[in-house]
């Protein structure tokens, strides 16, 4: 009797479990169409005047509109808030005609007033994500749908105006002093999605913005989940818990390309991100304590010749990248340094040694390290504890040792290394850049004006380098409206930078992303053919993604669940029936 009761209990528990399994699957099947992305970064700040991480920009791309957008294929101008635009004859004034049907997610109208407000306030308060574009602009809204923008100098970037537009009715209530502490947690959105929930360090959940006026995405709910390691995140997509991941370990990505996982597609996208070794060139107007040898352009050239970039691309990136000798000025490869391979740096240690000899750095005391006037050629080498660039450290220190340059390696976290850079107190260090669409911003980093002169302020010129010729060309291209002439000036700047500059650029690396190809299709790259799908300049890839309806792959997992449920139910029924039978047998006795 007791035994039978126990069996019935077991059968009930099993039955409920089966029910629970079946309901949980039906919820995910009937619920909102969700796209979950695994990321290894957590949001730094949603406040567009404060944040600087890649994930922050991704959220802003999805929640804040801009006046114009950029084509996924070649970053050419596209309508966004503005439908059309006309320029004055001198090219200094542009008049934009805005859509009339726009609303913020909270129902407030979105007008030319919001744009004029954003531009004016960003200049007044010096918002650092905005001023590279808006610094020379003034804007007035003549009516709700008309915006007049005037530049104080000829500006080749116009009529593209791609800064994030903020809701005036929210921001005008916040003073300049309070703004850095504003958390942007009212979640007012003007983009395709709006944030509905966020748990710091765990996830951020977005749903479609009901007042969105652009292309309607198929995705109804978008979730970014933060993972500790790239490998953990990859295992989550493999198990089917994620639809996409950004940052797949290179070796695993190689196995994906080999077709080891039929339901996952790997996409290696390049948008100009590059790694480099900065050499403290001790600009006379700057501060710091760089090694005396690095002031000599010949020593910097020698370091450039000593590096085997091909080997690092092969081993560190597993081939997902390209050797580079100059910066990527833009996410658009058209602005890269166009130089024949035999006209620039290659792996040539003999040439590096000859250059060092010529510069007077010889090993006079026989300790294997070059010296000059009693100073050893031993360089402080600082690298980051995270990020791909640190994997190059063992390679680079080896190459330098081969040509007689000793290094003293110290590893820092990002913040500490940033503080050291602001003081220019280093000899060598490794980091990386990701460029914008317009080359101006990246090129501005190497002007004399960007050299750090005050540690509390810092400066982007992290090679502590100055060159009058480069400065002059920078000023010229900034106001050159003829795109061909401007491109030519940028090539001249590349030549100066590569030949004389403070960087040994190592390589351009790909963003390695993976997607569930059994659930999603229509992956649109930005820039076309070479770029990634997510974490791009405009993040429009999410709007293009389409679910595979009744796809065989997705069906596969469902079938497994159905079979599992069927087995559990069958087991429960069997147990019940058996206990009944036994009971009836007992009764008969």
């Amino acid at each position: 009797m007791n035994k039978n009761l126990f069996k019935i209990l077991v059968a009930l528990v099993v039955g409920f479990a089966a029910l629970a399994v079946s309901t949980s699957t039906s919820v995910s099947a009937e619920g909102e169409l969700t796209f979950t992305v695994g990321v290894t970064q957590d949001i730094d700040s949603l406040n567009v005047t404060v944040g600087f991480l890649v994930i922050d920009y991704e959220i802003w791309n999805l929640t804040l509109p801009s006046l114009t957008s950029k084509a996924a294929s070649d970053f050419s101008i596209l309508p966004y808030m503005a439908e059309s635009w006309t320029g004055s004859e001198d090219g200094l004034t542009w008049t934009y005609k805005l859509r009339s049907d726009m609303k913020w997610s909270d129902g407030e109208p979105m007008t030319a007033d919001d744009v004029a407000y954003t531009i004016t306030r960003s200049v007044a308060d010096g918002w650092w994500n905005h001023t590279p574009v808006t610094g020379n602009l003034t804007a007035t809204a003549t009516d709700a749908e008309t915006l007049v923008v005037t530049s104080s100098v000829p500006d080749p970037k116009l009529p593209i105006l791609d800064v994030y537009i903020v809701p005036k009715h929210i921001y005008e209530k916040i003073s300049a002093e309070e703004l850095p502490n504003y958390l942007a947690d009212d979640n007012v959105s003007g983009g395709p999605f709006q944030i509905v929930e966020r748990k710091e360090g765990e996830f951020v959940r977005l749903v479609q913005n009901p007042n969105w006026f652009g292309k309607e995405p198929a995705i109804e709910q978008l979730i970014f989940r933060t993972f500790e390691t790239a490998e953990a995140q990859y295992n989550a997509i493999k198990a089917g818990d994620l639809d996409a991941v950004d940052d797949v370990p290179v070796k695993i990505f190689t196995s994906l390309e080999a077709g080891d996982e039929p339901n996952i597609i790997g996409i290696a996208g390049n948008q100009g991100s590059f790694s480099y070794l900065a050499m403290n060139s001790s600009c006379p107007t700057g501060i710091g304590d760089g090694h005396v040898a690095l002031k000599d352009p010949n020593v910097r050239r020698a370091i450039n010749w000593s590096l085997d970039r091909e080997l690092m691309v092969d081993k560190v990136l597993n081939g997902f990248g390209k050797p580079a000798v100059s910066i990527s000025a833009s996410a658009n490869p058209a602005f890269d340094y166009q130089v024949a391979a035999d006209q620039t740096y290659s792996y040539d240690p003999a040439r590096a040694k000859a250059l060092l000899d010529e510069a007077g750095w010889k090993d006079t005391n026989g300790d294997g390290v070059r010296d000059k006037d009693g100073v050893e050629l031993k360089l402080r080498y600082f690298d980051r504890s995270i990020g791909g660039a640190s994997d190059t450290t063992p390679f680079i220190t080896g190459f330098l040792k081969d040509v007689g340059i000793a290094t003293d390696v110290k590893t820092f976290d990002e913040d500490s290394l940033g503080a050291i850079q602001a003081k220019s107190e280093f000899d060598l260090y490794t980091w990386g850049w990701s460029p914008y669409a317009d080359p101006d911003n990246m090129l501005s980093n190497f002007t004399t004006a960007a050299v750090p002169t005050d540690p509390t302020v810092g400066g982007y010129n992290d090679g502590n380098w100055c060159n009058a010729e480069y400065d002059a060309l920078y000023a010229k291209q900034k106001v050159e409206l003829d795109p061909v002439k401007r491109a030519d000036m940028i090539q001249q700047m590349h030549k100066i930078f590569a030949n004389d500059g403070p960087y040994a650029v190592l390589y351009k690396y790909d963003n390695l992303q993976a997607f569930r190809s059994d659930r999603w299709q229509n992956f649109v790259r930005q820039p076309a053919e070479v770029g990634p799908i997510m974490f791009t300049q405009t993040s429009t890839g999410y709007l293009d993604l389409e679910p595979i309806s009744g796809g065989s792959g997705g069906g596969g997992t469902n079938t497994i669940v159905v079979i599992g449920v069927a087995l559990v139910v069958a087991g429960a029924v069997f147990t019940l029936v058996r206990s009944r039978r036994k009971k009836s047998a007992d009764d008969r006795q």
Partner: protein
Amino acid sequence: MSDSVASISPRGMTWARRKRALARVWRELRNDRSGFSGLLILLGFGLVALCAPLIADRSLLLAAAGRNNPDLAGPSAKFLLGTDDIGRDILAQLVWGSRVSLFIGIFATVVAVLIGSLVGLVAGYVKGKVATVLLAIDNFFLVVPFLPLAIVLAVILGRSPVTLALVIGFTSWAGSARLVRAQVLSLSERGYVERARALGANSRHVILRHILPGVAPLIIANATLIVPGAILTESTLSFLGFGDRLSPSWGKLLDGAQSSGSITLNAWWYYLPPGLCIITVVLAFTLFGRALERIFDPRLAGR
């Protein structure tokens, strides 16, 4: 007969006594199967560490050494334990890694035992305010979470093997200070120490001649037990990315295996050998240390 006895000096007598004691320890160790096997394993690893240059050329550790090798290749005749994610021979890194891991383990222990014994001796012998202060410091190091402290120190002081050993030693002396103090307290009350004092011996003489020899075996046994902890700490720090990334320690191999995704890719030859080495050495030190403890402190024999 009486002549020969007279010819032995007091110093000689001491040496003879020590020799006998050592012989007893050796005899008991030989009979202690687990302790003796621990010792043999340790000697084996020590031999490998010493002979590393004969087994594998140091140049095999360079990043560029994998230039013409396949990455993450399984064991083969050319690479007995396969290659890592940049094509370097794993066996070479394992052999040279034994040097780093054993060096850090032993050097850190020396540091910890020196600090611990000094603090323990002083706190046990000199009572009063000094002891109170020392005990307070000791308590602090006993309760403070050890790994975060080690990480903070490693970040501040740098990451060469020597500084790592200092950091580990500096954060793991508190236990042995406790142990030594307890033993010193007990020894100070013994009759022979009191008699020495009554005969006019000063503190220096009492500590060096009577108390230190009494606690020495305990310190040695305790040290043997600190080594595995230090090796594990080094591995943990390296695995978490706070170690010296340019020295080939076992923990760094595990870190490389983890960050390159070798577990997902089933590249067992990358993570299994360093893991097994760490476990084996830690186990060997523990077995050997426990055996020494049993021998030096017969009260533990039955346990």
